[in-house]
Every structure is written in C-alpha cells, then in structure tokens.
C-alpha cells in the first residue's frame, strides 16, 4: 500500500482491485482529546472559557467549562460516540450540533432523549449513553 504522506492519499489503485484492508488505526499520530482540542490562538476569535466544572459520562469523570454544551465538552474530551442507533446499534455522533437532528440524544440526570448538542454542562451532571429509544 503506497502512502503519499503529503496528500494523505493512502493509495490510488482502483478499489475493486484492492482488498479493503486499510482499517488500521490512524489515530497514533493524532492527539484527539484534552485541552489540545480547545482552540487558544485564532486569527479572528477570542474564546473566553467559563469556570472549570466536571461531570460524569458513563461513570467516567470529564472536565469541562461552563458555557459549553455536553456534546462539545465530550468532544473535547475525545469522545465521538454519543449514542447508538436503536435497532442495529451502530455508533452515532452528533450531526447538526444545533438541536435539529436528534443524533446526539443521551440520558442526562436520569432524563432520556436530551439533545446534548444544545444542553449546557453543569457541575456534577450525570450523563449516560442511552439504550434504545429511552423511556420518560
């Protein structure tokens, strides 16, 4: 498999002639979590972070800043899967991030179907992956 590092094109051979065996982890050279993900230098924007708080996600402590949504804080912490599709249990992240699409619904403080892309974090929140369609 030829890897052109400059363009990040893994190979250019036609796919139908190439076995689909390239599911190796590509994350070894990518730092995908922590404050590294929080932008500090930007040519146009200044980001004022709120105060540091923490919440739990499936029992694991996650740190965040007030003013962030749950989905944004989880993203910064390296989590990409927020839900599973109810029938085939495929992993789901957010899609629209503005409260339209329902791809990011989780259980928050015991309440199911919370759109975490528009729900702000609060200190001590309990966030859990939702199983199935959730119950009220």
């Amino acid at each position: 498999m030829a890897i052109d590092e400059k363009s990040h094109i893994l190979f250019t051979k036609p796919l139908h002639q190439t076995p689909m065996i390239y599911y190796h982890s590509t994350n070894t050279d990518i730092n995908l979590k922590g404050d590294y993900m929080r932008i500090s230098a930007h040519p146009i924007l200044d980001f004022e972070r709120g105060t540091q708080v923490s919440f739990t996600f499936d029992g694991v402590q996650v740190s965040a800043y007030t003013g962030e949504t749950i989905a944004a804080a989880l993203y910064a912490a390296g989590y990409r899967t927020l839900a599973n599709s109810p029938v085939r249990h495929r992993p789901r992240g957010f899609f629209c991030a503005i409260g339209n699409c329902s791809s990011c619904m989780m259980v928050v403080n015991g309440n199911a179907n919370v759109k975490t892309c528009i729900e702000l974090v609060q200190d001590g929140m309990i966030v859990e992956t939702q199983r199935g369609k959730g119950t009220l």
Partner: protein
Amino acid sequence: MIHIDLLIVGAGPAGLMAAKEAGTAGANVLLLERSHVPGGQLVKQTHMFFGSEEQYASYRGFDISEILLDEIKKLPNVKLALNATALAVYDDGIWAAEMDGASYTKILPKAVIIATGAGEKSLAFPGNDLPGVYGAGAVQTLMNQYGIKPANRVVMLGAGNIGLIVSYQLLQAGVEVLAVCDGSPRIGGYLVHAAKLRRMGVPILTSHSVKQAAGQGRLETVVLWELDKAWQGIPGTEKVYRADVLCVAVGLSPLSELLRQAGCEMVYVNTLGGYVPYRDSFLATSRENIFVAGDVAGIEEASSAMVEGRLAGLSAAKFLGLSTPDFNAKRNDCMTQLESLRSGHAGERILSGLAQAVIGS
C-alpha cells in the same frame, strides 16, 4: 396563558429584524429562541458579509448578531425568551412552548411570524452515519462558537458557499483540509471564497463525490470518486483520504413543520430547498395571521433573511392595525433590497423557485 400581539419563532437574522421592525411600530412582541444564545447561525459566522450597508455588509456575522440584539434591547415591548422551544399550534390558535427547560406554556397571539430557519441536509453513501461525518454547520458551531478544534484532517463534501467558507475557517483553526469535492462540474459558491482556498493549496475536485466513509467506530477514511455526466461514480477513479472528519455541505432544507401544522398551504420547491409555504410578496401565508421570513421560506442567505424579517415585521404590524407614517417607504425599501440581493447568477435559481411559491402581490 400569555396573550400577546405578535409571536415570533426563532431569533436568528430574520426573527431579530422582524422583532425590531414590529416592536418599533408598537407591537407587543414575544420572541422565542430554542438556543441559549440569540442570533441563530450568525453567531458562528466569522466572515465579513457582502451586500450593502442596510444589510450590515463588511461586518462579521457574530457582530451583526450583537448589533441587532442591542437594538432589540432598546424596545421594552419586545421580550426575548431564550431556551424556549415552540412545540405545536392548535386549531384554536393557541401555540405551545417549552420554556426554560420544563414549563409548558400556552400562548395566544394575534399574529405570528415563523422564522425557524433551516437544517442541514445529508447525502446517502455507505458509512454516512459514522461518528466523524458531520454537517459543515455543525463543525462550524463546534469550532467558532465553542472554540473546539473539530479534527486534524478534514474532507469537505460540497463546494457551495457553506462548504467553501467552512473550509477556510477550518484552516484558520489549524485544521488541515485535504480536499473539497462537489458532484457538480462547477464550483457552486462565490469564486472569491474558492480562490482563497486554492491559494492555501486546497484542491477543489469538481465532478467528485463520496463513494464511502469507513472506520472502526469512528471515521478514519473517506473514499472519493469521479462522477460521469450522469452523476454516476466511475470505477477506477477512487482516491482514499485518511481523515478524522468528513463535512457534509450539500445544502439546507427549510424547518417548516410548524407552518404545516398551522395549516398553511405548502409547496415543494427544489430550488428553495424543500417544502415552503405559499405566500404573497409581503410574506403573508395562506393563514391570514401567519407570516414567514428567512430560510424557512426558502434557502437564501443571512442578508436576505434580515430584509425578509423586516418586511414580515412590517406586514405583521399592518395586520395588527399599527400604522407607521413611513410604512410604504419602508416596505418599498425592503422590496428594492430583496430585488438587488436576488440579482445576478445566484439569484436566478432563487427567483425561479419564488415564482412557484409567491402568489399575487
């Protein structure tokens, strides 16, 4: 039960302008906004707007949002409710909203302006539900509103204005944009945005689309391929990119559910993005006390949404019997501005769409 002259749903560019105009005319206005911040999608627009002075050209989107909000705050008869989601409208004209997270509130307005905006479309390809395949606007929210770097390497699907602008903003946030592709043989967005990307060395592949997205639990690779003249993928032309995010910028669709539920007559117009309400040129729908403004009436740009908001605000004020001495001059000004914004190449599609949705004058 809240009794109010005018209920406006959505505090984006259209809703804010509508509130300002109707509030200035003397209407008591309740402006509902689902998000915890007003401004709609203006808050994540870091680029300078085009257009003319009336549409705040040369200001950046998030500044325009602040300007409009300051003007709203000067009007004591306009109440802005944040974390407030309009849920439904009933046959007796009562609207229901969830306010501040829990309370179910009933509202009986004399007139309503729907300014709910639009949602991002997706595209069918294998792997399109993998975490890492996001709407371009979603990535813009994460990056420009919350200051979180969305990825290290991105492939952008869509070379319309959103695809091009978000690609440039990704570069500003330190993200590598591997390629921008578009199924169309031509770049859909303004060439000034495309030229900025080209200068930064980002390839823009026209007549290319996504064959598939793949990865273990999250996106790892994106396969693009070339499309023939019938928009079918050509085997043998695949390019595989190692990317952690694939942005989908294939258009928007009006969030017109409330209008449909309210019984407004709707029509599917492809060039306006989906189902939109029939209305007259002054934005009154087939329900006499319901008006529309902005992307929910047909996908355009924030500039035209602001002008439409103003126009709908004027129309609603007139319906409420609130007369302003310069009503005709203001309304004519709105019509002239809209005509100007819809002139030129990009306006042709919108005008052909409007011809299917606008009735009478």
